[in-house]
């Protein structure tokens, strides 16, 4: 064996330390050797000064945890519990001894494995512990520890503890030891009790929480030897009967007992054992709690008498305010438990609650003067929303169609006036989910043509959905609309800032969730200019929220929203922010840069043209990053011989965009016929392709201007906000031009340019100058190739533009292929360590609480940042994490 090489003559100079009272005590300096006789391996340290004195002699056991630290340290714990350390003078000496220890342990393991094979039968021998007395506690403690090492030993021990009813026999000793004030005995009792619980046996744990012995058990656990000066007061806590509250008495004694036991199990899990729980025991506790809760909830929801009594607390003849509050708390706790139940059980519970009048209770709670009760009320509502948003929206729509005030209206009104910012926050989230314009059904786009709704019985027609949404949204965004009457936004109150921040956030969410449904609201209420004004407020976080809204519009690559941005002074205001923050490097500045980077990266031509054309001078002055210079460069590339491209052409080109997005009357969104994604892509795809030739030839001017004429009837209602007090800041050019050119409408629309039939671009019916010189075509291709080289991230392929929908960056492919497995995480990794952790909330049976806030990224839009596969990956990721936890349990 390799051990022979580690002969005893290798003397390594070393210092011996022993941990005493948390201090490393120096036992002296000497020379270290590793020695072996038969299967006995020892480390010796002889004193440097007195060679006869042995500073250390320790036997190596196969399971001792030796650690090597920082090249020159070996640390371990002696069998008597003392922590020891050897600090070597030289790393080399350390590694020699370290190798010796490793080899020794390896050897011992091999021997032990051989022994185990022989002793399997022996291990199944039943274990018998002596009847407990104070005198034999050390012996019992030791026997239990020894037996706990193997699974067979643990099984035998469990059997014995149960059969012999060993725990009740131990408990009198706790009182006895307390009377004698014998701390060592109490510590031993605590250790024994820990060993018993960590046997991880269902029956034992269930027994532990029963009435006769629970107090004795936690009494023993109050004296943790790891905290010798500290005594917990578990008994006091658990003995306190007043903690259990009842609104309507539960009569079934079995259920009452289950409730009590569940509470104790939770206390054990969270407090008594929190630090020492291993994963298997944690999991056993969790599953016991879970099954108890299933029974309790089942009992409640199937008990009609009980439910009637419960909800009658809110009846008109029930004046007891405290009792009402308690009942709300009770329902809140039910809803909290329901989160962990399986869907059918949860559905039953909620259905029964709703039948009995849960909405009235929620309405009562959210109007309560006490903010904490309002919070509780909204929590219940959110639990319902998390459970089944479609069902909840169904209730709202029905209420609306029956001319009752839907809960949404109540919530919106409350959101507007709520003064508690925490509650406001929750209200905003609830409204967001309730009005989520994307109805999550089989159809990923959430589109419900009038001919389709019949397929889903119980769902109201699309028109009604849209009408309800518009009405609610109008009400919701009223404060935003009212901003137009304000002369200045410098005097917004704290409350207003919070409200507007929520409203813009919700609006952003709506737009991202559903491309079309929000259009009419944004249009009719002229919301975009209002949000744009918020870019000028002094409150930076509100500025940022407004900026997010526009960033979202950009990422949608939708012609309607593009028009919104190019026909307001939006970019001017954003550039103002860049200027304001410019020399500094801060969040607002980065957010602006990212926005322009996105335009550059995705090469969104309408924006490139608009921004450079209109704000070229401003851009040129921003030199501290190259983003803006690259934008200008990109623009020049688009112009081809770009230098001479005059402004009239360019502004007309940006106006072209809406032509195709919103034909005829600009009312496409109204659901007459929704664009499907292919069509949408088609439009997006064609946008830029047809612009190439336009900006080039000598005839381009004419062509472009006619196309501008096409736009005018469409654009005008979109951008002409006659009552807008921001008018001075807005670009009035397009209108003027539009009117001027409107006569030439339709003339060029059907024309078809051969250039657009090039391999890179799908053929598109675009307005086009008919005579394009052939050399222009080749020129165009050449430039496109250059373009491709620059945009490494754009994958090649016939539909070049569609690649903008892929994940950002070149890593997209790599990421899609990534396998996700936490189980195989390397030992030192965070997640792997996490899997060992006792506190992993998701580690148990209980599912992680769903939060509505998490819905943020789940838009099924082909926007570059929010692709649905990503969302899926994320949930997989978390699930995997939980599974990894469970695997260890």
């Amino acid at each position: 064996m390799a051990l022979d090489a580690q002969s005893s003559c290798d003397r390594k100079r070393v210092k011996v330390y022993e941990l005493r009272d948390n201090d490393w005590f120096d036992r002296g300096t000497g020379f270290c050797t590793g020695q072996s006789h038969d299967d006995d391996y020892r480390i010796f340290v002889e004193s440097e000064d007195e060679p006869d004195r042995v500073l250390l002699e320790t036997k190596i056991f196969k399971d001792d945890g030796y650690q090597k630290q920082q090249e020159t340290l070996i640390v371990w714990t002696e069998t008597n519990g003392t922590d020891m350390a050897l600090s070597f003078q030289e790393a080399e000496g350390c590694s020699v001894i370290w190798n010796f220890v490793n080899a020794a342990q390896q050897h011992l393991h091999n021997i032990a494995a051989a022994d185990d094979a022989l002793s399997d039968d022996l291990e199944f021998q039943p274990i018998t512990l002596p009847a407990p007395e104070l005198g034999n506690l050390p012996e019992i403690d030791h026997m239990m520890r020894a037996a706990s090492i193997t699974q067979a030993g643990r099984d035998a021990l469990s059997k014995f503890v149960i059969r012999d009813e060993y725990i009740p026999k131990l408990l009198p000793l706790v009182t006895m030891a307390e009377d004698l004030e014998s701390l060592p005995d109490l510590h031993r009792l605590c250790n024994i009790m820990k060993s018993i619980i960590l046997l991880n046996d269902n029956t034992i744990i269930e027994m532990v929480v029963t009435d006769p012995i629970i107090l004795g058990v936690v009494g023993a656990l109050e004296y943790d030897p790891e905290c010798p000066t500290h005594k917990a007061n578990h008994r006091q806590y658990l003995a306190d009967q007043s903690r259990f509250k009842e609104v309507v008495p539960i009569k079934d004694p079995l259920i009452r007992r289950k409730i009590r036991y569940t509470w104790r199990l939770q206390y054990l899990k969270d407090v008594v054992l929190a630090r020492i729980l291993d994963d298997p025991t944690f999991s056993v506790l969790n599953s016991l709690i879970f099954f108890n809760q299933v029974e309790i909830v089942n009992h409640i929801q199937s008990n009609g008498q009980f439910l009637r009594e419960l909800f009658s607390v809110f009846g008109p003849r029930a004046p007891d305010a405290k009792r009402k509050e308690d009942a709300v708390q009770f329902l809140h706790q039910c809803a909290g438990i329901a989160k962990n139940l399986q869907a059918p059980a949860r559905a039953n519970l909620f259905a029964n609650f709703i039948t009995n009048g849960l909405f009235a209770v929620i309405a009562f709670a959210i109007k309560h003067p006490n903010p904490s009760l309002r919070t509780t009320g909204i929590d219940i509502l959110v639990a319902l929303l998390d459970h089944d948003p479609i069902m909840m929206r169904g209730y709202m729509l029905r209420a609306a169609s029956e001319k009752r005030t839907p809960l949404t209206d109540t919530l919106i009104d409350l959101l507007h006036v709520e003064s508690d910012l925490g509650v406001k926050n929750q209200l905003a989230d609830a409204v967001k989910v309730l009005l989520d314009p994307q109805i999550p059904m089989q159809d990923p786009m959430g589109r419900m043509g009038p001919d389709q709704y019949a397929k889903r019985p119980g769902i109201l027609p699309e028109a009604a959905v849209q009408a309800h949404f518009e009405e609610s949204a109008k009400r919701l965004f009223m404060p935003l609309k009212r901003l137009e009457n304000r002369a200045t936004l410098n005097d917004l109150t704290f409350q207003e800032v919070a409200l507007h921040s929520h409203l813009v956030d919700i609006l952003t969410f709506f737009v991202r969730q559903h491309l079309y449904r929000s259009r009419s609201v944004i249009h009719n209420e002229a919301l975009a200019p209002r949000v744009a004004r918020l870019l000028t407020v002094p409150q930076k976080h509100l500025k940022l929220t407004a900026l997010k809204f526009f960033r979202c519009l950009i990422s949608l690559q939708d012609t309607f929203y593009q028009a919104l941005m190019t026909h307001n002074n939006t970019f001017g205001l954003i550039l103002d922010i860049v200027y304001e923050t410019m020399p500094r490097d801060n969040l607002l500045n980065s957010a602006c840069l990212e926005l322009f980077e996105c335009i550059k990266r995705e090469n969104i031509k309408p924006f490139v043209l608009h921004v450079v054309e209109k704000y070229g001078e401003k851009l040129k002055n921003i030199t501290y990053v190259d983003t803006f210079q690259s934008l200008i460069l990109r623009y020049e590339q688009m112009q081809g011989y770009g230098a001479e491209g005059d402004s009239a052409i360019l502004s007309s080109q940006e106006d072209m965009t809406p032509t195709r997005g919103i034909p005829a009357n600009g009312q496409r969104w109204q659901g007459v016929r929704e664009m499907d994604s292919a069509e949408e892509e088609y439009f997006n795809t064609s946008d830029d392709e047809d612009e190439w030739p336009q900006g080039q030839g000598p005839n381009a001017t004419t062509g472009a201007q006619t196309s501008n004429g096409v736009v005018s009837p469409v654009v005008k209602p979109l951008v002409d906000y006659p009552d807008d007090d921001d008018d001075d800041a807005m670009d009035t050019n397009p209108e003027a031009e539009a009117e001027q050119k409107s006569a030439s409408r339709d003339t060029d629309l059907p024309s078809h340019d051969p250039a657009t039939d090039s391999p890179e671009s799908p053929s598109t019916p675009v307005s086009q100058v008919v005579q394009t010189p052939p050399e222009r075509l080749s020129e165009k291709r050449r430039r496109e190739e250059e373009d491709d080289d620059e945009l490494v991230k754009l994958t090649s392929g016939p539909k070049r533009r569609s690649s903008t929908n892929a994940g950002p960056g070149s890593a997209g492919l790599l990421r899609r292929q990534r396998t996700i497995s936490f189980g195989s995480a390397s030992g030192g990794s965070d997640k792997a360590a996490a899997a060992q952790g006792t506190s992993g909330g998701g580690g148990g049976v209980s599912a992680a609480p769903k939060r509505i806030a998490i819905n943020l990224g789940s838009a099924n839009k082909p926007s570059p940042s929010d692709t649905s596969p990503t969302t899926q990956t994320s949930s997989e990721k978390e699930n995997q994490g939980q599974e990894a936890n469970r695997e260890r349990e």
Partner: protein
Amino acid sequence: MSDLDRAIAQLRACRLIPETQVRELCYKARELLIEEGNVVCVDAPVTICGDIHGQFHDLMELFRVGGDVPDTNYLFMGDFVDRGFYSLESFLLLLCLKVRYPDRITLIRGNHESRQITTVYGFYDECIRKYGSANVWRYCCEVFDYLALGAVVLGASSELEPSGPSPMVNNATQSTMAMENGGLETEVLNSRGEVTMNTYRGRQRSSSDPNPPSLRAPGTGASGNGAASTASRTGAILCVHGGLSPLIDTVDKIRLIDRKQEVPHEGAMCDLLWSDPDEIDGWGLSPRGAGFLFGGDIVKQFNYKNDLSLVARAHQLVMEGYKEMFDGGIVTVWSAPNYCYRCGNVAAILELGEDTSAGGTVARSNGDYARSNGLTGNKAGVRSPGRRYRVFEAAAQDTRGMPAKKPVADYFL
């Protein structure tokens, strides 16, 4: 005593502040953090800390070992919350200190500072337990969105100054060390903050230069080889929670991220918070399901290109508290001793001294860190900073009682 000081005192005693005060605090923090760049510039001297994970009492231990705020400048590399039972106390205290001493303490975002992760790994649960609703969780998550993504430490000395800042360390036992190229010192401290072990060695990078590790008696500071310090510029140190990203080849690129968002599942921002270094070539898939693995060549290239001498990161449990990899090009710093109250590891913090050779001025200013400044032609001359790792153990049990979650107060079911 201001409200803020009162709140700090209260939190130091591990007692929570009322919900309204948390809200105020978070709003103030937001105003402050919105002014910070995605990569904050920090001047040496500074003490860099890794994951805390709600181990409040160990955070107190960290302050005992490293010196208190504002006497010591701190940079925390994220993961303040989850797992431990005192995420709220830990994070709110750090936030209070940030608001009270904005220039003395820097907080950057870790992968656990996210809504999704905190709902699974304990922080959400803790907020519900301790405040009865998710409001405080929301406020905190809002602050998370504003946290910077990284930091760059400038002006670090290539020498180790005598370790003085720790108030518990007897200065008489310290001696000055000076190394040609970035010394490295490790101190092991006991629960009373006394140095029990002190090792000092030259930079690992020069493996051809065996500087035998010397054995020191406890409490006696290591002595260096006495070489006269050749004052020279040390490269900057980039601090991020996770690691590098294939999408980020220069530090400046980080500036182009709009960081105010939930940590995404992919992309540069995600990678910075999720990636891990590994003994591989190039980039690899991460077993975590987010971020990447990156090899020594990547680190070397990145450091060279960005004029960095070191990447400091956290994110991975290391039993010894810190771990240098790739010839000292990257270091993992872990500051949660006995992680999850059971992993048995020690923790470390990394102290970087101030380079006073240039009269205390820092050559590069805010926002300028990755641009050439006339010295880039001499990249071989970039010195790695002197590093002092202070290794410490979990706070003694006695000082904290038994860590536990807050039990349910009243119950109906």
